């Protein structure tokens, strides 16, 4: 009787977990299924299945251009955010520097400010420095958004680094810059790579900053937003499914890499 009673929470929690997984995956599965519907309106049941929408999307110049544009912005954002994030993290862990708590708080600020307000403040900011809306403004906005995450990831790794590694390099004649390049950076490697992929996903995902900072050239989320507002069609489902599959694959790969690095 007692074992039955003490097992009840375990069984309930297992059921809740799987119910939650079902809840998480159901809308996305429905969305993917709808992309195969052989009709030009979105409605269940699906009835006839087709691959035509994919053929259409893959020939859609607007979609392909938006993909390229998003990837370009994500690459530039990732590069800038990684350099800045590591630089800030190095400053925070450096010895003999005062006010590390304040620097850390400032570095995390953009992660706490709600997305909409961040977008508005950046829109105002670029106008005060006479920067036009467009690609450069989007990259700037995305970088501000991504830097805190790189800082936190780099800091976690830096704090677990044995201090004598750099000392050894210094004793062997490397100056601090060389020691950073040859010892600290390789040590950061795997954590940094996970952080970089996170930046890519963050940038490709971002809608609100792009909406306020962008020009007329649509990024992927802007294109999907415009299409959804313009009217439903399984074409959007095919587009979204393609994006989802690619980003999930990238995310899984990053997860695999960081896990492999951790177990080594």
């Amino acid at each position, binding site marked *: 009787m007692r074992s039955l009673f003490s097992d009840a929470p375990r069984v309930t929690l297992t059921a809740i977990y799987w119910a939650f997984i079902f809840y998480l995956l159901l809308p996305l599965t429905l969305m993917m299924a709808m992309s195969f519907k052989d009709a030009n309106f979105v*409605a269940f049941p699906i009835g006839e299945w087709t691959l035509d929408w994919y053929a259409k999307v893959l020939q859609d110049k607007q979609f392909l251009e938006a993909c390229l544009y998003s990837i370009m912005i994500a690459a530039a954002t990732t590069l800038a955010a990684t350099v800045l994030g590591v630089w800030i993290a190095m400053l925070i862990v450096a010895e003999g520097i005062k006010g590390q708590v304040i620097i850390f708080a400032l570095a995390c600020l953009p992660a706490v400010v709600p*997305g909409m307000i961040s977008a508005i*403040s950046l829109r105002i900011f670029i106008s005060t420095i006479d920067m036009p809306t467009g690609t450069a403004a989007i990259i700037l906005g995305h970088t501000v958004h991504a830097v805190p995450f790189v800082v936190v990831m780099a800091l976690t790794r830096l704090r677990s680094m044995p201090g004598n590694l750099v000392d050894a390099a210094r004793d062997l004649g490397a100056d601090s810059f060389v020691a950073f390049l040859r010892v600290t950076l390789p040590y950061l490697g795997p954590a940094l790579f996970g952080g970089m992929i996170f930046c890519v996903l963050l940038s490709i995902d971002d*809608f609100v900053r792009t909406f*306020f900072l962008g020009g007329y050239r649509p990024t992927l989320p802007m294109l999907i937003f415009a299409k959804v507002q313009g009217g439903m069609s399984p074409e959007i489902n095919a587009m979204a499914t393609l*994006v989802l599959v690619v980003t999930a694959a*990238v995310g899984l790969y990053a997860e695999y890499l960081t896990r492999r690095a951790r177990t080594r």
Partner: protein
Amino acid sequence: MSVPKYSTGMAKVVNSSLYQHTLGAAVESRIGRIILLASVPLLWLIMLHVGPIYQMLKISLLSHYPVQPGVESHFTLANYAIFFQESIYFTPLIKSFIFATGATAFTLVVVYPVAYYVAKIVKPQGRSKALLLLLVPFWAGELIRTFSVIMLLANRGAVNVLLREIGLIDRPIPMLYTSFSLGFGLVYLICLYMLLPLYSAIEKIPSPLLDAAADLGAGPFTRFRRIILPLSRDGIVSGCSLVFLTCIGVFATPMLLGGPNTVLFPETISSFFHGASDKWPVGAAFALIMLVTALIAAAIFMRLVGGSKRRAI
């Protein structure tokens, strides 16, 4: 000065006189090192992490912006006063708070058992797989997740079609473009931000503590109330703050899933930037009102729930 011989390309760079006279010389002195280390980060943090908020504050106190020729811009508090004058301005903020608070509370209740399950019931070898399964939708992105909710709730979406097939309803229940679809979409969008803080807090609770309590006769409910809940307080505080602040700032989801009765504050703010351009100061003031009230709400919550650390230990 003896420079060790590397056999790599870096050696050539390091030994070159250009490097020796610039970077190499700079990192040799303490001042040089500090300047190299601190200059760019401090400049970036002050210019781009603080700068935009500061500019927003500055413009919210101006009568006109962008400045037009012939129009004198002067200091004013009128932009803030506008907020309190019309209900079409402050009701969206109240609605934003209701939706964000509701979504946060709901998410906490739903995600807590899931986080507990993964952290304490799943065996350690299986944990990362159990977490990974939860993270898959997270990679879909804000817009795609919002869009996929439409598939479920539309008039000819899965739920309505299913209910009609079973024979429970004759005509579809209008769920999309209502408070319900918006709440559902918000929870779907943000529930995973709750998971990770809760998971890492619950995982840290030592299992022997729970076994000891069980041996002393504490039932599952008592163990939860007296041990698990107090010890996971940090996770609850950071998860709820994260979800609340994210929820408040969501822009696309209310526009796609909400209806005419669910205009939230971000949409109100946005109207000042896409309409007549001289309303920017009002938009800036509204954005600041939102930022300050949201941060105060989060701070009060942290104080109420997380303030009593001593009791937790």
